[in-house]
């Protein structure tokens, strides 16, 4: 029953905040390459579910995750698995760009340094440049790598944190509404970037924009009140959904 091409296989995943059950048993297989979009009304549990993939829920007091999540066939909630190592493999980009109050260079170099990915300054320089290039930010910042990352514009900051995430060469990038603070031009750049990154990475993106989900994703999952209602190829979801709820949501009849 498990899809052999799946990066993540989730079986009966439930998440509790204290006594409150935010997710009621999710089963899903996320493919290895390509973009998977999570859509659904506010409060339905998209962010909560996204955070189970890199165990960021561990940092929230009172949050419990049950069920099974396999990454490449290995249980990521196994007691012997170090969440710190998991997070090096599963990067995350947040809704609000959150560059560290350090130089642009140090922002990118942060991950490689703590994981000891490079052995010389030259290697680190090269890695920083490569990450910034991939994130499409290099040309804009190459002359001011020593300046603070917080001084960039919102769209540049968001690409900076993406560069920061890909600098540790993760296998997966989780994005929680990455474009919600961006203007249309920055959003277009971001989407182009996602388009490019999906060749190499497994990308999961939470978005409130139907158009964005339709543009960038290969598969779409629709969540409603803590349940996975429908999960299919994006084209199918947006042209011919099999569930009425999905139909109502994407046509804007429920919010």
């Amino acid at each position, binding site marked *: 029953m498990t899809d052999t091409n799946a990066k993540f296989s989730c079986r009966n995943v439930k998440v509790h905040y204290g006594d409150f059950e935010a997710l009621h048993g999710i089963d899903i297989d996320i493919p290895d390459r390509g973009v998977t979009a999570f859509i659904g009304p506010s409060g339905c549990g998209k962010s909560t579910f996204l955070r189970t993939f890199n165990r960021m829920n561990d940092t929230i007091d009172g949050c419990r995750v049950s069920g099974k999540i396999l990454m490449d066939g290995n249980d990521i909630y196994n007691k012997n698995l170090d969440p710190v190592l998991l997070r090096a493999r599963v990067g995350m980009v*947040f809704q609000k760009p959150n560059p560290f109050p350090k130089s642009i260079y140090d922002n990118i170099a*942060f991950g490689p340094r703590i994981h000891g990915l490079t052995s010389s300054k030259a290697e680190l320089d090269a890695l920083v440049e490569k990450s910034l290039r991939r994130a499409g930010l290099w040309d804009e910042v190459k002359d001011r790598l020593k300046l603070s990352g917080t001084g960039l514009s919102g769209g540049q900051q968001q690409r900076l944190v993406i560069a920061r995430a890909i600098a540790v060469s993760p296998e997966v990038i989780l994005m929680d509404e990455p474009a919600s603070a961006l203007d249309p031009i920055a959003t277009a750049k971001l989407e182009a970037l996602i388009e490019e990154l999906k060749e190499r990475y497994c990308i999961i993106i939470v978005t409130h924009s139907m158009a964005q989900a339709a543009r960038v994703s290969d598969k779409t999952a629709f969540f409603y009140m803590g349940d996975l209602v429908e999960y299919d190829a994006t084209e199918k979801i947006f042209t011919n959904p099999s569930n009425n709820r999905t139909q109502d949501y994407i046509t804007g009849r429920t919010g």
Partner: protein
Amino acid sequence: MNQITVYMLMLICALVVAGFVYNRSQALTKFRQMRAEAGGKLELSSWHSQASYHGYFTGWLVIFVTFTVFIAGLLLGAQSGGGVIPWVAVMIIAGVGTIFLCGKKISGGFRARTYVERFVHGLLIVLSIIAVLTTLGIILSLLFESLRFFKSVPFMDFLFGFQWSPQTALRADQVGQSGSFGAIPVFAGTFLIMLVAMAIAGPIGLMIAIYLTEYASAGVRKWVKPAIEILAGVPTVVYGFFALLTFAPFVRGFAESFGFSVPTQSALAAGVVMGVMIIPFVSSLSSDVINAVPQTLRDGAFALGATESETMKQVVFTAALPGIIGAFMLAISRAIGETMIVYMAAGKAANLTANPFEAVTTVTVQIVALLTGDSDFDSPKTLVAFALGLVLFVITLLLNVVALTVVRRYRAKY
């Protein structure tokens, strides 16, 4: 202040209260009457101020008028002898007259609220000006007295002299014998004690702040934070005798067990106890700045696979660093201004030393020593206290300004 003046002040209070109550009720009556005439519904624009504003207006005006009479009476010496009765009479007439005049003005169109607001506004400005002027006055007096001192002792000899013995100069009845007023040993002592204190308070306070903000559970925080802040509430004189009677003998005993002989009063004893005193400054100011570091930064670091301590050291701490430096500077300025602990535990001998086991003296201790006891307020021996105070003031002022600028710059950062 004799009895009559006290009674007069009570009379003023009575007049003010009476004026407020009476004219407020007058206004209310008029308002109701007008409303009744208008058929129960009054246009908002036809009655400008609420009744109580008419009361306040009267009250303020009565205060103003009666106080003028009061001051005039005091200046004319009316508080004793035959002046009393006219004084009281004028006071009552002026007060009651003001009340009636104000009462006459009450109408829908009279803008009592505007006047009251304007008056309160003016009053607040005057009060803050008084505070500023007081500060200015203190600075000017420091400055002028210091200038008088520098007439007899050259500024450079004071600031860069290595010999501090103001008492000798006095005994020899010599004014400003050169070398006697060299302040370096005194400032060095202050500096040494400050270093000892910060060596204690800096790391401990910072660790406490980090523990409380990043690691402690809400329950622990609830109890530990106030418990630490109690340290700041202990009177400094209590710290002083704790330093002198408990901690200093302990230090001496400890040193003697290694075969060293050290004096009871020492920079170490005073500095350590002062350090304990300023721990809560460092810890609560730094925990505020650490708390102000947004959670999203921590999440960002965790999501890159950073451990808790890496996140703390490389992200949270660097983000909070300017604020922490600011907190340290405020703590330092507190430390060098502290008097009681050093007066009791550090000693009075002006030794120029870097050895914390020796007795040293500080600026504040010297000021106290110079100004207590019988002294002639024109001799350099007392005037030098102003010079010391001035330098101390400038140093703490600079520290505070730098600290606040650093903290503010950091605020704008995210």
